[in-house]
């Protein structure tokens, strides 16, 4: 008994880097299923991309579309906690930031916080942000007048020691 156990254990330990767990499943079966899963991911991603375009065209046509994006200034150590946006006095977006979201923004990711429809012309944007800069809490507010033209209106709200609005 002892010999058997020792032989099995020894073989198991030495072969660990070269073998895998199959638990009764053949390698081909596992591979085949994995490929099918990848295939369905591809299909669903294609549907998702088409749906996004359809949604944009249907719900937010370029003539009336306005999208607000939030980013964190490069090199700043600003950490947003929460944000609220009013468009023409009406609250259209509010968001409380998670650690992951803050991290993503500090690395250059941009959050789309609002997409909606407005008429052409001037519109008032009120932005309030609570956050931390160099460890101390800060509350910032700013007002901006956006001018909606024929094409989609993209506005970037860049957070840092001050709020900077960039009309794209």
């Amino acid at each position, binding site marked *: *008994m*002892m010999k058997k*156990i*020792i032989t099995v*254990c*020894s073989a198991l*330990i*030495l072969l660990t*880097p*070269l073998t*895998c*767990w*199959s*638990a*009764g*499943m053949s*390698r081909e*079966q*596992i591979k085949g*299923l*994995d490929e*099918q*899963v*990848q295939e*369905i*991911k*591809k*299909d*669903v*991603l*294609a*549907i*998702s*991309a*088409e*749906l*996004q*375009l*359809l*949604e944009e*065209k*249907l*719900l937010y*046509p370029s003539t009336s579309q306005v*999208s607000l*994006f939030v*980013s964190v200034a*490069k090199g700043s150590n600003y950490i947003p906690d929460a944000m609220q946006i009013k468009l023409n006095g009406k609250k259209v977006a509010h968001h409380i930031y998670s650690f*992951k979201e803050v*991290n*993503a923004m500090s*690395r*250059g*990711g*941009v*959050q*789309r916080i609002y997409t909606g429809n407005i008429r052409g012309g001037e519109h008032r944007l009120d932005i309030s942000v609570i956050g931390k800069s160099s460890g101390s809490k800060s509350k910032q507010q700013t007002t901006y007048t956006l001018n909606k033209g*024929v094409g989609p209106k*993209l506005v*970037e709200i860049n957070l840092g020691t001050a709020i900077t609005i960039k009309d794209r």
Partner: protein
Amino acid sequence: MNTKVFILLAVFVSSSVIAKDSADVKKDLFFSEGLYYAYQEQYFDAISKIDAELGQYYGLDEPELNSLHFYLNHAEFSIGDFELYYRMHNRAGRAIKSVLEGNVEDVIRNDAAYRLAKIYHQKQQPINALHTIQRIKGEVAEKIKYDLELLKAQIYISNAKFTDAIEVLESIESETAVAGYASYNLAIAYIGNNETAKGILQLDRAGQVNSSDKAVLAMRDKANLALGYKLMENKQPERAAKYFERIRLDGPFSNRALLGSGWAAVAAEKFKQAIVPWSILAKRNVTNQSVQEVLLGLPFAYGKLEAHGKAAVLYGKALDIYSKELANLDNSIKSIREGKFLEAVVREEFRKDKNWLINLRNLPDAPETHYLMQLLASNDFQESLKNYFDLDDLGKKIKSWDGHLDSYTEVIGHRRNYYTPLFPPMQEKFRLLDSRMKLRLAQRKKIADRLNKMLIAPRPDYLAKVNERIALNNIYGIEKKYKTGKNSSSDIDDRISRLKGVIQWNIETEYQDRFTEADKNLRALNEHIEELDRKYRSFVRTRQAATQSFIGYDDQIRQLKNRIRFASEKIELLLARQGHFLEQMSISELENRRKRIEALQIKARFSVAESYDRAVKKQQNLELEKQKQESLKNKPESKPASEKDKPEGNK
């Protein structure tokens, strides 16, 4: 270490991509939005957003004017890169092409190629892994420099290119970044290359690596364990014991080390020494394979020490434990067959936790997970489980999209009902205004052309005022009347000529002023024309937007619904298959463990009987000896006990 490397890589690749975003280049908000999701490890959303953005970019007439143009290479690379993270490395070569042929810096591309090779290696596709790793050329990020070499060596080992592996591993063995791993793999490579003596020596070195890193310490333990069992196999238990003793008592290999240590002592016939490690091991979690084995080993050692009574009790205890564990395993197999295991593992709260795999051990409704830790830690199982999670997520997404499409159809219906009655009268009015507008524009054009011609060939008569034209017409009428009549006289002719001359004088002398005035008026008209044109275009756009808000979607929505339905059915099928796979893997593992316990149980039954026999026999011998001594002492007259009075062994 693997997780660490992945995180570091992710940070590196991402920061490299972002480094391109200099202030003078216009930021592409939609691409950056994709990155926002990628940095949160939401790769599906990231791929989908960047895919949609790329699709729009390629559909543009002048894509070079789009802000994505400046990030095109990175977007193409990123999408392949994120597909790797989303475990889509097979995707029609897109990910592979993007990664291996991406027009990005060597450092970034090599990073991704390293990950791709690692995926192939983990998925046991050694040839693909080898081809990928061989494509890595140029600069490599400092952070992965040694990990890359280690992976290269492991891939060489998988492809039985032991000499190449040895060459690579020998060059990095002394590097602290891969301490333990390189040494251990070098030993494997030596053994694979039939250099067993060198392999054993190398394992000895790997078993003495100094480090405070838990992963490195685990590798050190693994090397010692491998060496210990190798020496046991070579019938050198005394040497083997030395290596088992090097292994930490709280590490992942401690149970197997304690077991081996005991067997080494037994092989050297030092049974008392075997009792120490085995007693420690016997108190540990009974679901562990080594613990279950030692439940037989410990009484075996006591038996060898002639403590048959103690051995019989321990065999009895082992039998109780085996019976209990067999019942647990049966319940677990039943529970898995009822789908409770999968139900438990797909719970959101577990999946959100980074340590979900470790937490699986504590699933309240799935006690079987204790038995499945080895299986759960295997790459095949983890990949299958991740696929299961992904399919579950995809199924939820698809379901919600179907609902979205229903809402869109409703919105389109409302819009159609609203706009359809408004269009005919509006069109009629527009048609009339349009024809008037066209007429006026034609007139304006004619005037502009005439003025342009007059710059070259002046025509003062064209700029005669209305009253001058009327006066001239009257004069011409009078002139005609007098010329044909009988009342003609030179006096009248002179007067007519004078009048004509006065008007002509004014027209000729005021020509430049009049021309300037006409040009000024035409320019003033341009402003009105532009305003008219703006309104006209605005109207056309609004009408087009209104039309497009409900026309032309039916086919697209119908097709999407069909695709969603088809995908949904496929997901359901794959989810069931993947779930069945996971259950089968788990059941197969549990059944294997069951068979092992059953085998141990049979051995325990025989051993318990044997121990009782020996214990009883020993007791009888003692009693006989005692009686003999007493009879000799008291000069007894009684006869020896008959054969039938002897107690029978416990069978």
